């Protein structure tokens, strides 16, 4: 009974049980998130334009409004904690399935000088990728170096959700989850639209957060951000996709408080984009028509917009993109 074979079978059995339990726990604890919807959307629907970028873009870019102005079809896959490495692979994945004509990268300068947190957000986009060479490349470029707990068993982040296991399981078995619906992502504070716009419901008494926000710092710019911006430009060139870069406007109060930092960032990115020959629209320094940049129209000092401001900004952005397109023609 105690032969090598029997011991090996027992060990293999133990490994199988552990794998099953890990899968079960992941299923029961991990929450539904927008990466699931976005990755599915870019793989199943044809778009002219895809907006990539951060949570600022998520709350400021409403594709439906922009499409009404430009007459094109666009979608927004900006996500919280989406760094350039993630954006690059999202574009690659989009090209694998339904190649877009234009990529509009929403650039939040502070992301460039911040090391990406090794939190659950750092792999949630990767996890939603279907198995493909792009996913393998994504793994090799980013995930392989990450903490094994984050990649295989990120239960630490969901320990507060232990009481909601029943609800999570029910949601994952529901048709909404199976059909990648946006409904489950909505709550009393925000509405997520089919085309990837997060409409933040205005709260006149809401806490705007601290004015000590994460600021851009040229000395701390991460090599990985520069590297993946270069790769993104190369990819767009190879795939003959037009690339446009924008920065959404922060509240006037923030701009006034950190005028030097924002001006330096503006100079840096203007020069960088010129070097890459990529059009750059920094809306902190462009005329915004009647868009009101007062803090009351923002969720916080960092620059996340309330729904109506986002819609208003989208009109401005749509007009710029249309003019740009017409000039080119």
């Amino acid at each position: 009974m105690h032969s090598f074979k029997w011991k090996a079978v027992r060990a293999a059995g133990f490994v199988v049980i552990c794998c099953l339990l890990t899968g079960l726990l992941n299923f029961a604890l991990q929450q539904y998130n927008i990466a699931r919807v976005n990755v599915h959307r870019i793989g199943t629907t044809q778009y002219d334009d895809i907006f990539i970028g951060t949570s600022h873009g998520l709350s400021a870019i409403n594709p439906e409004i922009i499409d009404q102005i430009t007459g094109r079809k666009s979608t927004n896959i900006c996500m919280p904690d989406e760094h350039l490495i993630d954006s690059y692979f999202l574009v690659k994945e989009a090209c694998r399935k339904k190649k877009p004509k234009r990529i509009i990268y929403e650039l939040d300068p502070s992301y460039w000088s911040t090391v990406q947190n090794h939190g659950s957000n750092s792999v949630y986009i990767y996890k939603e990728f279907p198995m493909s060479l792009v996913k393998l490349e994504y793994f090799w470029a980013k995930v392989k170096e990450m903490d094994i707990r984050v990649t295989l068993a990120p239960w630490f982040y969901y320990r507060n959700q232990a009481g909601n296991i029943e609800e999570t399981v029910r949601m994952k078995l529901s048709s909404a989850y199976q059909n990648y619906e946006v409904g489950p992502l909505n709550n009393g504070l925000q509405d997520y639209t089919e085309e990837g716009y997060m409409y933040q419901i205005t709260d006149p008494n809401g806490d705007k957060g601290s004015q000590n926000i994460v600021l851009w710092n040229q000395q701390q710019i991460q090599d990985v951000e520069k590297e993946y911006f270069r790769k993104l430009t190369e990819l767009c060139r190879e795939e003959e996709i037009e690339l446009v870069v924008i920065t959404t406007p922060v509240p006037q109060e923030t701009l006034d408080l950190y005028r030097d930092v924002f001006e330096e960032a503006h100079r840096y990115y203007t020069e960088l984009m010129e070097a890459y020959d990529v059009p750059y629209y920094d809306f902190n320094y462009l005329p915004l028509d009647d868009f009101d940049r007062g803090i009351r129209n923002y969720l916080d000092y960092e620059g996340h917009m309330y729904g109506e401001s986002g819609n208003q900004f989208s009109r401005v952005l749509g007009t710029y993109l249309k003019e740009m397109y017409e000039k080119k023609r």
Partner: protein
Amino acid sequence: MSLISMEFLLFVLVAAVGYYLIPKKYQWLWLLVFSYIYYASSGVKLLLFLVYTTGTTYAAGRLLEKVEQKELPKKEAKAAKRRILTLGLLLNFGMLAVLKYTNFAVANVNAIFHTSFSFQKWMLPLGISFYTFQSMGYLLDVYWGKCKAEKNPLRFALFVSFFPQILQGPIGRFDRLAVQLYQEHRFDLQRMQYALQLILWGFFKKLVLADRAAVVVNQVFLNYTQYSGVLNLVAVLMYSVQLYMDFSGGMDVVMGVASLFGIELDQNFKRPYFAVSITDFWHRWHITLGTWMKDYVFYPVSLSKWMGRIGKWSKKVFGKKTGRVIPICIANLIVFLLVGVWHGAAWKFIAYGLYHGLIISVSSLLAPVYRKGLEIFSINQKSGGWKVVQILRTFVLINISWYFDMAVSLSAAFTMMKTTVTGFSLSAFQDGSLLTLGLDWLDYLILLVGCLVVFFISFRQERGVKIRESLAEKPLLFRWAVYGMLLFGIPMFGYVMTTTGGFIYAQF
């Protein structure tokens, strides 16, 4: 390549599977290739430093042996060997000193002479302190004739670069490590099982306990002026948890990984917080550094001619008993000064080393007084109660040294010590101050339970129980439950830092 990354897991898996599939005579070569891949993953340029140390040490070793074989007159041979040894030591310790201590020297010169020499931006190759010490240990062993010089440069390269240990030790000895590295190894399921247990145990200590304690440590030590005495004390106690769990946990992982390849590395820890004196502590803490210092610094210094002259002089001046101890005290001070310097280029580390050296030296000098005191108070040295007192006393002394080790500077260490005493108040336990340090009650509870588990296991080991062997005798379900608890407890209760939290000693 972080030990906690997916990359490392896959790397070890491929290395181990291939190791047992290829012809056994090539196993060592396989290990060498993987060791170099591992090191290159931190930066290909860093390989240059590794190759430099390997090359110079190998050449020096071979030259020493050639001199031995030449049958030169004794005096001439001795002088030639000494020249080769000196050159080998200078080339390697010189490189280490330049890379690690130049900026420290520049800072001090600038401060003293009001100059403005600029700081260098040299990279510090990972693990350079460990592999330099390991290589120089080999060179000294060859010089003293304790071992023969390795003829095959590739085999020697493996001794210097063996991947599990290169970043944070243990510092291996050629006579014990090289034999195992070059041997052929058969797959042994039992050994694999033990190795995986050790790896899991190491990860438990590091990820559940050390990383959690680190939150409080970083918060208080980096903002020490903002916290009261009791919170300073809590932070230093947390540091004693963090450092032990981090370093010994890292060692468990390293030894477990080495064991997967059939290689048993030297023990680096033996339940150090059960030490009854500082000397005993250094026999249990970072053992391979301690024995390296003992063999290659302490003995050569204390048996040197000049130390003999000091011994004779001190016997004349202080009498036979005290005079005999003085050379040992001086040798100890030199050893611990070097231990301090080894830990880093800062005055606080030098203070850390000297503090330990002073306590050991003063203890040696006062040993007769101490013994007399025990007799006067009729204290039974073999009683359990007295042992507990000794353990607690040593633990307090060790914790004082952690102020030097972890504080941002030497003056910060003294300020924190002062605050601990003068600003001590237990109100922090009642007013919720503990919860402002980055952890919640659940975290403190996990820390407490985890430490109790480690204490219980250490206590059993101290009593001579072999944990893994005793676990192997338990029923299958019990064992599976233990493995399951560790395997699932680590991701469930482990503390995930928002940015990469590497092992402390992997920065040396």
